[in-house]
């Protein structure tokens, strides 16, 4: 414990006492001590002048932070539907048996905890897990056996086989964004030669739109931010790609980091920012060291820091902030809250981040892919982007393809590509449905496979999950409804309560206890969530249910009980205690579920 105290004292001495750093401190302490003990929280509370209860409320918000020790090895399995389709549940079960633990319960000897987590962005090479925050891909029974042995032998992580941690970019199709290279610094040089106004014009002519999926005009966003008078401006890169099934930012951060930082620096030069942040999702912790190295290299080359490329009026630097397992932080205002060390609760809008963002100052928040595009547009010009795609959707889109196909991975296509083309190229056969844009996206049936990936048709941040006809799509719906219930921030009533009600109803369908009444109920709850929620998460959280109820009603009806009404609980099971107490187990002590004899109840 003395060690921990020294660790915290040292950290605070290095980074200062700004409360903005709270989440970063908590992540570091979690890493150091496998949890956040009371003493550490009291020490932070004292030195940062934040009430301890507020620190606890931050800890309890983020999935990766724990108040109880997680042991020497904290192992969490990625629990996206694509991991499940690759057999993750059996592998978790197998590792639990080998290590004699139950999910979520630390082993008594303090060696290990096994648990589940939301999609870790390795759907193309899953099933995947994180061990002490570091990603392990391509799990199979052999790898699970090895992991069990390494844990039992208390082998330190650096001594685990290197191939466990090797993550492939897995780029299956290159187009202009991934293919056309720029020289580091060339976008900044263009800015210096032509000036901010000219570059904003170029950006506007290119018609670049945000690649996170919402598709807002990048030039407009940057212009509004620049035109907002304030003490200072900020550039923030949203690298919190948490949408289940998305992993394109993983590849950009791994192999195109210089382009990303170039784009951020370009933005800073245009809007007049001195400081930028890369908000990196906690699942991508393993990318952090290389990203820091790239930043350092850029500072040495005069592309970051004071007087960039000799310009005495241009100083800008980038700091990496790590997330801690909260899908909601992909929402830009929740991300800003998180960046300021708080719980990721989406802000009331207006004001928008371009007017009042990080620390209340005008802030541009853009997706990783958007910044990479911007850097290349600066160098190659507006026509470069316009040479691909459609009028409303210029350029290309990176798609993260996973699920039932022979070649999962990253595919870059000009906007306008059809679903059927994608399916053919990635080797998908006998397809029942494609889930485009993640859990919050759309479920596309075969009759719509000629639709296109474009802002004017199917807009997406890049997630593309394929389900063949052998799959029960309801398992996807169940996975997503549990996901949303887990990831709801809890701020507003419709999302907090609605997502929990919805999850329970989907479970009721799966176990065969639901009736048509419950399906109507799901539609009603979904509508309230869609219309009344505070932010985009709540608005879309019911979408997987509503879309499939509409387009794939059969996946529900085949599970329905043949009655008009069923209580939320199992009546017969509820009598078990009474049966035990009275020692009875005859027919009269059970409630019969024979549809013929059952009285038709009206809800």
């Amino acid at each position, binding site marked *: 414990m003395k060690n921990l105290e020294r660790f915290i004292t040292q950290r605070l001495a290095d980074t200062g006492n700004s409360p903005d750093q709270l989440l970063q401190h908590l992540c570091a302490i979690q890493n150091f001590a496998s949890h956040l003990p009371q003493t550490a929280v*009291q020490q932070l509370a004292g030195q940062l002048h934040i*009430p*301890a*209860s*507020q620190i*606890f*409320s931050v800890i*309890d*918000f983020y999935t990766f932070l724990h108040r109880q020790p997680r042991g020497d090895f904290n192992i969490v399995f990625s629990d996206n539907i694509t991991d499940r389709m690759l057999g993750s549940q059996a592998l978790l079960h197998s590792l639990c048996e080998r290590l004699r633990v139950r999910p979520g319960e630390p082993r008594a000897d303090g060696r290990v905890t096994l648990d589940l987590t939301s999609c870790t962005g390795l759907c193309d090479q899953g099933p995947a897990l994180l061990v002490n925050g570091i990603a392990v891909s391509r799990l199979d029974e052999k790898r699970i056996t090895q992991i069990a042995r390494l844990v039992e032998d208390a082998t330190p992580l650096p001594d685990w086989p290197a191939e466990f941690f090797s993550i492939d970019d897995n780029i299956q199709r290159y187009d202009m964004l991934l293919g056309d290279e720029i020289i580091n610094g060339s976008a900044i040089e263009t800015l210096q030669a032509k000036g901010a106004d000219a570059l904003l014009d170029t950006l506007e002519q290119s018609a670049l739109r945000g690649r996170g999926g919402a598709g807002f005009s990048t030039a407009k966003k940057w212009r509004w931010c620049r035109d907002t008078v304030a003490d200072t401006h900020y550039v923030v890169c949203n690298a919190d790609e948490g949408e289940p099934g998305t992993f394109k930012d993983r590849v950009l951060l791994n192999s195109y980091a210089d382009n990303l930082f170039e784009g951020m620096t370009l933005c800073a030069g245009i809007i007049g920012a001195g400081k930028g942040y890369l908000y990196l999702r906690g699942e991508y912790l393993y990318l952090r060291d290389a990203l820091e190295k790239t930043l350092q290299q850029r500072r040495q080359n005069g592309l970051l820091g004071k007087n960039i490329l000799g310009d005495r009026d241009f100083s800008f630097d980038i700091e990496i902030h790590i997330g801690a397992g*909260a899908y909601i932080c992909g929402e830009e205002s929740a991300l800003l809250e998180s960046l300021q060390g708080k*719980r990721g609760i989406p802000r*009331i809008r*207006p004001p928008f981040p371009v007017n009042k963002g990080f620390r209340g100052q005008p802030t541009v928040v853009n997706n990783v892919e958007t910044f990479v595009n911007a850097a290349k547009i600066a160098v190659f010009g507006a026509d470069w982007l316009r040479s691909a795609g459609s009028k409303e959707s210029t350029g290309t889109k990176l798609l993260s393809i996973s699920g039932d196909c022979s070649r999962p991975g990253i595919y870059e296509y000009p906007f306008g590509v059809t679903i059927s083309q994608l399916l053919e190229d990635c080797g998908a056969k006998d397809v029942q449905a494609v889930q485009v844009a993640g859990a919050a996206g759309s479920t596309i049936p075969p009759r719509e496979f000629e639709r296109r990936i474009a802002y004017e048709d199917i807009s997406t941040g890049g997630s593309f999950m394929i389900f063949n006809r052998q799959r029960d799509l309801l398992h996807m719906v169940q996975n997503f409804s549990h996901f949303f*219930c*887990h*990831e*709801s*921030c*809890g*701020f*507003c*009533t*419709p999302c*907090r*309560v*609605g*997502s*929990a*009600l919805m999850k*329970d109803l989907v479970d009721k369908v799966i176990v065969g206890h639901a009736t048509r009444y419950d399906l109507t109920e799901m539609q*009603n*709850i979904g509508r*309230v969530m869609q*219309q*009344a*929620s*505070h932010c985009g998460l709540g608005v879309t959280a019911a979408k997987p249910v509503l879309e499939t109820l509409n387009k794939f009603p059969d996946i529900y009806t085949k599970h329905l009980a043949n009655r008009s009404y069923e209580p*939320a609980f199992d009546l017969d099971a509820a009598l078990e205690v009474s049966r035990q107490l009275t020692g009875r187990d005859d027919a009269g002590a059970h409630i019969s579920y024979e549809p013929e004899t059952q009285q038709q109840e009206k809800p």
Partner: protein
Amino acid sequence: MSKSVTFKLDGKSISFQPGDTVMDAALRAGEYIPHLCHNPEFKPHGSCRVCIVALNGRHLSACTLPAAEDMDIDNSSDAIVEQRRKLLQMLFVEGNHICPACEKSGACQLQAVAYYTRMLSPHFTHFFPRRAIDASHPDIIFYFNRCILCGLCERASREVDGKDVFSISGRGINSRIVFNSATGKLGDSQLAITDKAVSVCPVGAILHKHQGYDKPIGERLYDTRPISVVGDVAANLATGQPHKSDERNE
């Protein structure tokens, strides 16, 4: 005086000042928009969503919606009232709101708004969460069962009392209030019975000890007149005016 600007609320002209939200202007004009997490003394929160209104087909919370000229706002169509009812039902099943066994019954804003929107039953499946009671404070008792996470105690303790006694912790359906004290108990916090935070609770989550059923059922705040006339719990406590119970509602 500048020219008065107005918007329409259910067809009625409501004048507003720059910076007003729809809720601010409506309350000032004596028009009632049902709400729970809103208290005019504090910055808008927008979390309960009960004040949802429709503007051009979009449903927005009135407490966070900046008023603008010529807006045509729907505050009472069947669709809006039905949606409010569902939100209230969600709040009812999320906690354990057993009105007949609650000291706040008759003077509870959740109950009163539910009556106002003609909610007849909680409708949804009850969660029946197991939540403890914190009775460690000498003067105050905290019923987690009845907390609706409006955040008013948190805001009042921070902004008015300067104490930061309350925080909302956890996430999603596991969200809950926590207390700022070494033990996590309310009794070890700095909360005093005179604190603003104690008087802003719209439901029966924060109650005074040593006084129960002072006022008989039937004579309480909302027993004879609806909340649209009586106003918020906190506002009635603040004015300290005894409630007139001579008029009978309808």
